[in-house]
């Protein structure tokens, strides 16, 4: 744990998140190590999405939703920063691919630049190229970057969304079950991608799939009924769980 502490990119302190009066996550304390992959696992409805949506302040955009507590990014409290500034530093990929249907492939990837920093065309071209390459999509779309984003397959659309998130040059990348709508081949592509991304980015990934968590992550957090039950290096958590609940979950006794 000490190792995590020293190089924490993000730190969650006493975080509670609500939908109206009902509390979806309770007193969460957690650190996310810099340039490592942290997986969040747990049964459906335990608050995984809610937790990561607090990390880019997207949670509060849902109707009647609010959060209490602190989340630090490089020691600075997110909830004291401008939410748009937070979201430029903390990118997000959603469960279902959500490209902008009215835009081309190129315009999707360049969206964070065109709408936010407005660099020159040349810089933008470079950023789009880099993001598409990082998302392992370049080879498949290099002849048709002006085609509609919706003309891509589901797996390609998800990688497009990854490219779009990366083009804004974030420091942290949140992924909420990014593979759940994809087939095994597309899934393994994205898993490879995650392994490469951690050289540059802090990755936080929610997944239902424990094998996936074991494969891609350095640290794993297990949540249950809105609470963080156990957190530690992935290997320890899967092989020597400290909590009874964790053990029964990873051995498939519930969830």
């Amino acid at each position: 744990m000490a190792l995590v502490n020293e190089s924490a990119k993000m730190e969650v302190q006493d975080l509670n998140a609500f939908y109206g009066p009902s509390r979806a996550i309770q007193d969460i304390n957690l650190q996310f190590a810099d340039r490592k992959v942290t997986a969040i696992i747990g049964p459906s409805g335990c608050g995984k999405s809610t937790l990561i949506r607090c990390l880019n302040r997207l949670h509060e955009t849902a109707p009647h939703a609010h959060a209490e507590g602190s989340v630090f990014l490089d020691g600075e409290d997110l909830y004291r920063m401008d939410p748009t500034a937070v979201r430029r530093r903390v990118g997000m990929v959603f469960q279902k691919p959500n490209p902008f249907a009215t835009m081309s492939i190129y315009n999707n990837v360049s969206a964070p630049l065109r709408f936010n920093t407005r660099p020159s065309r040349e810089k933008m071209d470079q950023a789009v190229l880099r993001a598409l390459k990082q998302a392992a999509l370049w080879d498949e779309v290099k002849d048709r970057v002006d085609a509609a984003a919706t003309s891509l397959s589901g797996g390609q659309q998800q990688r497009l969304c990854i490219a779009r998130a990366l083009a804004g040059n974030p420091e942290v990348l949140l992924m909420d079950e990014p593979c759940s709508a994809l087939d095994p081949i597309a899934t393994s592509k994205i898993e490879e991608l995650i392994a490469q991304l951690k050289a540059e980015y802090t990755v936080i990934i929610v997944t239902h799939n424990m094998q996936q968590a074991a494969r891609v992550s350095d640290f794993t957090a297990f949540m249950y009924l809105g609470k963080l039950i156990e957190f530690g290096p992935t290997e320890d958590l899967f092989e020597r769980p400290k909590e009874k609940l964790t053990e029964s979950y990873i051995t498939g006794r519930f969830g």
Partner: protein
Amino acid sequence: MKFDLAGRRKIFSHGMTVLSGLAIVVIMVPLVAVVYEVFLLGAPVINGAFFTQQIPYPCTPEPGITCHQGGVLVPLEGSLVLIGLSSLLAVPIGIGAAIFAVEYGGERRSARLIGMVADVLSGVPSIVAGAFALSLFIIYDPTQAFSYLDASIALAVLMVPIVTRTCEEALRTVPHSVREAALALGISRWKMTVRITFVSALPGVITGILLAIARSAGEAAPLLLTLGQGCAHPLQGITAEGCALPLWIFYGATNPYQNWYNLAWGCALLLLGLILILSVLSRFTLDWMARRMRGE
């Protein structure tokens, strides 16, 4: 017993098929009759002169007298001016109200109020909208009480609720995931609304605008109170008295002179065609843009 029931069901079903067929005929009759009549009476005057000439001297042909057909250039221009001006007023207000209600209102009472106001406004009789616009000018600037400007305000009152309602619906059909995608990229709420959500909703918005235009282009009642008597002179500007196609239908069809009467039917046909084109166009843009968005 069982067989009997099935038989009765069959008879009932056949009876209903016949009845609904009959219902279709019943609603088709007035439609076909109207189009037929308008076409029959209007088509003879539709020629080059009809679109380019002024209203003629009133005249009825008698032995030894031939009448000048003339044209409806001024009512036609007037209708186009009214469409332009009233859209200029109604479209920004309607779109603005819809954007506020959907994107910014949230659960606030003011957001729901906008929908309610639009509903009430869409029930306002058009003659009342005319009276409203007239009184507005009588109070603030009587010299322009009868003008294109005044009439446009009356028509805009009728258009605003249509634009607001259709635009609201179009914005609500944009999936939440699109908004979340934009927000998660750190795009500001305003830019997201204008350049992503609104663009996604554009087909619906355009349809709404065309529907509103089609509705207001055929209105005569508010024009009777606000447009004055400008059919006999060439167009003089938006603050002068004017004319419009529905207004000329009213004048021409209610006077005894044959050539004016004929032109009124020509106007009726023109107006019908215009509204038909607008409806088809709105359908077409909707389909075309929907297809483009699906990337076909």
